[in-house]
């Protein structure tokens, strides 16, 4: 009898833990952002309607840094505007931590902070008062505002500008203040629309480090950028957008693998002889570029790269070589170019 009771108690305890674990796991595994078949059409008088966002779908996991990449006018900012409740979608759905952007915009706004594409600084207020008003809007106490202002001004090198008015700041400094404000608060989701635009190298680095640190703390970050090196360094996942549609998406490695395994061989030679050139051309590379005593060869697959390398080495003129795979920028340009030629 006693054993039966113990078994029941044990089973209940196990059940309790399993139930809670499932709940916790479901919560953690739920995507932070779910976008399904999002469409936004703009209609100007006497003009055909333009589909700025044309059936975009993607998910962003919690704690992930997600990049929306694409050329100007691709629909990145319109997508961000819909996700941040600045713009209503024409159709489709978007949910931020379970809150629908149309049905519960306030619920969404309570979960997010945003660096909009425009320079958003109070021109008539000092930098300190910019931080104060921002903190107040986000429900911080005066003490918290003071502490966090100290932290972000240190991080973004703004201490000496605290008493300067927004009006007197350069474009890059205004952007710095705008980005710094975002890192004052602990909202679970951060949207950064071209956040590093206009910043110098020092502040770009500070911003990238702040983004990384925040992602490590579990914040989900969605960013748009033109600078693909930045995206490659930061993002866990990306979506490449062109003309309102996602043309490639997934982890950075997944997207890079869409380059059809392109490899770049940089061969430094004693002299660029006819023999070396013929040897390379016989192996039918995709592209050959000669600069002084250096030849850059583009091939597909590692075996082709090895073949070229071995053959050139046998000519006896090879001094040094480097092999690199396609960067995100190569893939991006390739995809955009391919899409343009199809259209």
């Amino acid at each position, binding site marked *: 009898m006693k054993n039966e009771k113990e078994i029941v108690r044990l089973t209940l305890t196990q059940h309790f833990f399993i139930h809670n674990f499932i709940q916790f796991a479901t919560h953690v595994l739920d995507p932070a952002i779910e976008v399904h078949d999002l469409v936004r059409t703009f209609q100007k008088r006497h003009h055909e309607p333009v589909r700025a966002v044309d059936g975009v779908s993607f998910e962003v996991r919690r704690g992930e840094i997600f990049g929306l990449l694409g050329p100007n006018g691709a629909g990145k900012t319109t997508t961000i505007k819909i996700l941040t409740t*600045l713009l209503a979608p024409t159709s489709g759905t978007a949910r931020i931590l379970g809150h629908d952007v149309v049905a519960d915009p306030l619920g969404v706004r309570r979960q997010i902070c945003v660096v909009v594409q425009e320079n958003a600084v109070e021109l008539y207020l000092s930098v300190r008062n910019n931080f104060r008003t921002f903190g107040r*809007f986000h*429900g911080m106490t005066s003490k918290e505002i003071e502490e966090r202002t100290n932290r972000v001004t240190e991080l973004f090198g703004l201490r000496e500008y605290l008493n300067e008015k927004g009006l007197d700041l350069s474009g890059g400094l205004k952007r710095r203040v705008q980005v710094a404000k975002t890192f004052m608060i602990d909202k679970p989701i951060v949207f950064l629309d071209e956040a590093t635009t206009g910043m110098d190298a020092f502040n770009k680095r500070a911003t990238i480090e702040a983004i990384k640190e925040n992602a490590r703390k579990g914040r989900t970050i969605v960013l748009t950028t033109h600078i693909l090196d930045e995206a490659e360094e930061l993002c866990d996942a990306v979506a490449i957008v062109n003309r309102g549609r996602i043309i490639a998406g997934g982890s950075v490695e997944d997207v890079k693998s869409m380059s059809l395994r392109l490899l770049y061989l940089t061969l430094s030679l004693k002299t660029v002889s006819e023999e070396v050139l013929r040897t390379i051309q016989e192996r039918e590379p995709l592209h050959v570029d000669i600069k002084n005593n250096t030849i850059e060869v583009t091939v597909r697959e590692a075996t082709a790269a090895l073949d070229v390398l071995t053959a050139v080495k046998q000519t006896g003129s090879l001094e040094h070589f480097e092999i690199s795979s396609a960067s995100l920028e190569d893939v991006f340009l390739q995809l955009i170019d391919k899409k343009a030629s199809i259209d």
Partner: protein
Amino acid sequence: MREVLAVVYREYLIRRTSPTWLFFDLAVPLLYLLMFGVAFDKALGHGLRIGEATVPYNAFFLGGVLSMSSFGSAMNQSYGFFVDRDNGIFYEFLTYPMTRGQFLLGKILFQCAMAVIQCMLTIAAGTLLLEINIRWELLLFALIGMMIGTAGWFFFLAIVAFRIRRNDTFNTVINVAYFVLMFLSSMFYPLDQVPSWLRAISRMNPLTWQTDALRFLTIGLGTFSTFLLEALGFGAFLLLSFWFAVRTLQKAL
């Protein structure tokens, strides 16, 4: 409430940076009354004959000056949307954790406080310098009337500001509208002495309702039933404007 107060705090900080703006906000109605009112008072000499009563023009004009100043405050405040839009901060505001209604309420709450100060300064000057007889027992209601008037016009003008993208177009539209609304109202002259067509149009103008209500609350001119009707009319105008302004702001981008 915290959200609304955050907007008020922001408006306060910005206004504090410009003493010139502050001065004009507070002193312009006063100057109108002292210059325009005094000149007409002298020109008309024996005052205005309204029904059985004779009212000095200064006293008659006080209600007009007050509604003029609340319209002016609302105009300034709605113009601020263009400044915020040019600065980019407008878009950032709309991503803050507050509703569009809270944002609009916060924007006008500070201006309402300014309107109350304007009203007190103008009434004080009217009493001390122009010897206008004020119904002091209704002063509190007059102050409330100023706040309601400022808010009503602000929400109405906000609708226009959200729909027009260019500030020069907005300025033109608003200045023309202001001119028409002013002269098609009871602001400068009693309506029972104007042509019937003008009277009919003016009776439909919310600026007439506000001016008449403020006139009743400051110098006691008019009947309670007319006051009540016009006050209710203005209340409906305010609520409708607020609702429409929120709707427009939701689609403003």
